[in-house]
């Protein structure tokens, strides 16, 4: 089909590196801007490191490692596993946000709606219906799919900043419902405690935290694979092409609207599944799960890590979650308490520090942590600079 190759070419045009051998499909796997010469070797090293990393992460609950200052205790303790599982879920959620912003160029301020739909949907169904976990999850998923189609198809009538405002408004409506506590379903401000009657035993209780940890890890790996796959699929290419030049894609006879909607829905479905696991991990639902703050947190993670990079989203998610946890611990420490007010007040507010850090990254580290790291590691190569350039372009195109 001519349209397919055309669309692929459109996506690849900015990448001016010569590529005698690579087929469009093979280049596609390559995460933009990287010279394909590094491709095979780089990917093999990357894959090997990835597998080794995953094996280590799988074994972590069985080991007795300590990372003082990062983890609250040795790696086998429930406290540490809980934090690590949270890191993984947030990294996975940031990946789904990357799918919106980094791939489709959609600056959504309503992603929390679907995360919250997963959390509260599953919580309410388990509370009120006597069905096992998997059917309950399926039912929740159905609700999310319908919701994402409705909201997505309306919001995508506008783009850029208006899209951001509209998605925010819809998410806010969701947040309001949760706060209003209709017929006692959501628990209002108090939230909802997970009813465990119909859950499998191995997911219940503090002693089983490591099972939940493995579940979170599985979710992260699965989401990473799916996001990679979507990005390299035809829809991913068209989305990237639309991001760069919507008019050209229209001229080619493709439907940018449908492709954006598809990515919007996929991203919503994935984040709702993450929300469901979040419910299990936290043993309950809190209103924050559906608030604009959560969306903003995901956005901050993606930007901290580096817009347009899957690893950036993962690193941003983990980094933010750990920093947030450590800063909260710091805020309650005696050292901070002893400071004069001028220092104590700002330092005891984790969000103040994170917000300031975020502003500094946007101002001084375009390309985020990954972009900066690459720039430092490979001063001579243009890769780091490319990363920064790509992040900037994605942000420009989202406008």
């Amino acid at each position, binding site marked *: 089909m001519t349209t397919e190759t055309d669309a692929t070419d459109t996506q690849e045009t*900015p990448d001016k590196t010569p590529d005698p051998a690579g087929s469009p499909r093979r280049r596609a796997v390559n995460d933009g801007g990287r010279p394909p010469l590094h491709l095979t070797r780089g990917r093999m090293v990357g894959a090997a490191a990835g597998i080794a990393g995953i094996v280590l992460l799988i074994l972590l609950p069985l080991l007795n490692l300590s990372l003082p200052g990062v983890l609250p205790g040795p790696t086998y303790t429930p406290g540490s596993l809980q934090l690590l599982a949270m890191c993984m879920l947030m990294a996975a959620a940031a990946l789904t946000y990357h799918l919106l912003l980094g791939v489709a160029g959609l600056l959504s301020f309503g992603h929390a709606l679907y995360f919250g739909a997963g959390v509260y949907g599953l919580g309410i169904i388990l509370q009120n219906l006597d069905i096992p976990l998997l059917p309950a999850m399926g039912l929740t998923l159905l609700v999310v799919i319908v919701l994402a189609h409705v909201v997505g198809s309306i919001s995508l009538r506008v783009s850029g900043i208006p899209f951001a405002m509209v998605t925010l408004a819809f998410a806010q409506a969701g947040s309001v419902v949760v706060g209003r506590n209709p017929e006692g379903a959501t628990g209002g401000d108090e939230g909802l405690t997970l009813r465990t009657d119909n859950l499998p035993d191995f997911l219940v209780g503090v002693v089983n935290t490591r099972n939940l940890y493995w579940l979170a890890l599985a979710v992260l790996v699965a989401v990473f694979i799916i996001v990679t796959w979507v990005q390299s699929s035809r829809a991913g290419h068209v989305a990237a092409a639309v991001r*760069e*030049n919507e008019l050209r894609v229209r001229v080619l006879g493709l439907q940018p609207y449908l492709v954006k909607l598809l990515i919007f829905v996929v991203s919503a479905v994935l984040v709702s599944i993450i929300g469901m696991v979040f419910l299990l991990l936290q043993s309950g639902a809190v209103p924050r799960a559906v608030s604009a703050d959560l969306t903003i947190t995901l956005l901050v993670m993606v930007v901290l890590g580096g817009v347009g990079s899957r690893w950036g989203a993962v690193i941003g998610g983990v980094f933010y979650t750990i920093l947030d946890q450590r800063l909260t611990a710091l805020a309650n420490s005696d050292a901070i308490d002893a400071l004069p007010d001028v220092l104590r007040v700002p330092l005891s507010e984790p969000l103040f520090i994170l917000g300031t850090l975020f502003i500094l990254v946007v101002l001084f580290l375009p390309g985020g942590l990954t972009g900066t790291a690459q720039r430092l590691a490979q001063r001579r190569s243009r890769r780091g600079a490319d990363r920064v350039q790509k992040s900037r*372009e994605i942000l*420009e*195109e989202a406008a």
Partner: protein
Amino acid sequence: MTATAQAGPILRIEGLNAHIAGQQVVEDVSFTVPATGITALLGRNGVGKTSTIKAIIGLIDRSGLVELDGVRVEKEPTYKIIRSGVGYVPEDREVFSKLTVAENLRLAERDAAPRRQLVEELFPDLLARSGQMAGTLSGGQQQMVSLARALLNTNKILLVDEPTKGLAPKIVAEVAETLAEAAKTVPILLVEQNLQVVRQLAAGAVVLSGGKVVHTGNALEFLDDDGLTQRLLGVSTEAVSHEASPHAEARHAAASQEKGAAL
């Protein structure tokens, strides 16, 4: 080239590159505009004429050398370049449609003593319509507003982008007359599709193709070289005979409009 204040060109461009959304639209363009008369910037549609004009005053991201009256200005923001003596008449007029004619003109005044008198003489129509929203004017009247905005101030050069585009033949003649009048006191760099107007006004010509300069020289010599115009502009100038009867002019204007619309 030695650019001294009196003998040198008023505008010198060297190695100008410009990008829009990551795409190169102007590639290594170099040319000069002499300190008197009208210089035409020619080329087929979409070769980067408008982008070149915009790049000169920094409306799009660009690199390269831009020298105005012997002073390098490429590092300056747009408003400073304009204040140093550039009058800009954009493609499609770009009047502020929700401002009145008088407001459009007042906004453009940057000299201590703007030449309101001159503008009123040149465009008596605008005086009568000064309280009207500029968006409700006809295309020709909007072009008058756009020209008037540039002529209000004392400029070192005028950059005029397709001033006759989409206008009726009678208005085209009026615009051309105004430009000829203006050119007596200020040099003009003119982008123009209507070759009859170019023939009437321009002394020099710079021809672009694919974002690059492919020809510079005398405007009439260029237009008389049918093979060259055919190759670089894609139009035959034979149809446009040298006699400038109003009818021939009108026919040509209509034809070139059609061409513009078709492309």
